[in-house]
């Protein structure tokens, strides 16, 4: 597995845990709020875990963009400066 894949799957696990669903239930583009009933507290929890796990601080002002797994990964990669 490439570094990118590994990190992507790690993020999937983190988010699934916060949303209280199984990892295979969390699709790449499934909307956190619409499909998994995430509220703002859970969204902030996701940010907090990203901060802890990846040492990447995403400002809360970007929360509205983090609608699904794919968008969240892209935001993390952008703030972390991941190239792969």
């Amino acid at each position: 597995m490439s570094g990118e894949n590994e990190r992507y799957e790690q993020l999937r696990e983190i988010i699934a845990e916060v949303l209280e669903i199984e990892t295979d239930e969390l699709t790449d583009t499934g909307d956190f709020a619409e499909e998994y009933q995430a509220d703002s507290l859970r969204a902030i929890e996701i940010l907090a875990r990203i901060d802890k796990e990846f040492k990447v601080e995403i400002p809360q002002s970007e929360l509205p963009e983090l609608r699904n797994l794919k968008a969240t990964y892209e935001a993390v990669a952008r703030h972390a400066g991941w190239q792969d």
Partner: protein
Amino acid sequence: MTALTINGLAALSAAGDRPEALAERATALAGERHPGVSVGGIVTEDLPRPEGHALLDFDVRARLGRRGTSFYDRATALAVVACGDALTDSGLTVDDTNRARVGVVLGTTVGSLKSTSDYTRETLVQEKPYLVNPMLFPNTVMNCAAGQAAIRHKLKGINATVTGGPLAFFNALRYAGNAIRRGYVDTMLVGAVEEFSAHRAWASASGPAGGEVPAGEGAAVFVIGGGADSAGRATICAVTTGYGPDGTAEQALTDCVARALHVAGAAPTDVTLLATSETSTAGTRPQRAAALRALDGHVPAEFVLSRVAGDCGAATPALALAAALRLPADGDRSGLILLTAHGTDGGVGAALVRR
């Protein structure tokens, strides 16, 4: 004063997840002390002693599912399950027509000591002090268990959390009685909860009576309603609390018991069971002496919950009442149960419940 009826109850303790299990263990022990079991499997930290009285197999996910429960702490999980079991036992269906008239009041000592201490710990050991988990923040607030019980069971009536350690259940009974008599609600879920954790085990062990009693845990909840339709049901005849300043707690407790008898219109000889609340903050002996003084020489049968299920802190008198109401019917079950507690400092309480 209108008596309140107990329309349903639940009790989770080291003896099992039903009040009958606790009553059966009490009967089998016949006054001897249960040594507890090895509890190392449910905590990761060091413990002051290997034994405790915990619900080793308790699994909130098995009871309530994953959704909404994965951020519960143990106290919240125990309380939410006990509230659900008590509602089921009462047969009360909560729907849109009555949910605003059903409330919750739960007793505690400090909420989940582990949740709060762990949260503070994170601010000390993380690279940055604010790297704490947002989802766990509500668990540091003492009303977490009652609030989550309301969310899970959709109860929109008065929702309160009272403190006092072993006194908290008496405070909760008084609070619930007031809410019903004042007409704010029709039904209250009244209970108390305490979780087992290394934090509590150490706190319990450092108390004056901590050497004798291992820490325990549990939750007991009663569905309480106004006086109507009370046939065949247990009734709460009197609940009194008070404070003895300047080290006069023992006298204050005697006064509380005397006042409870007066309110209930009962004679000392009507009391058939005395349940003192032995916890690490207060031994059982002064309570027993103080209660017996008010009973004018009458000595009822006695029940000490901590001998059966350990130091259950705030849950102690609630579990004792649940067990007493489910004791097998040998001899005279008709009389009054007298519950007593001494919290910290001068805080005392007494209650009389007719079986």
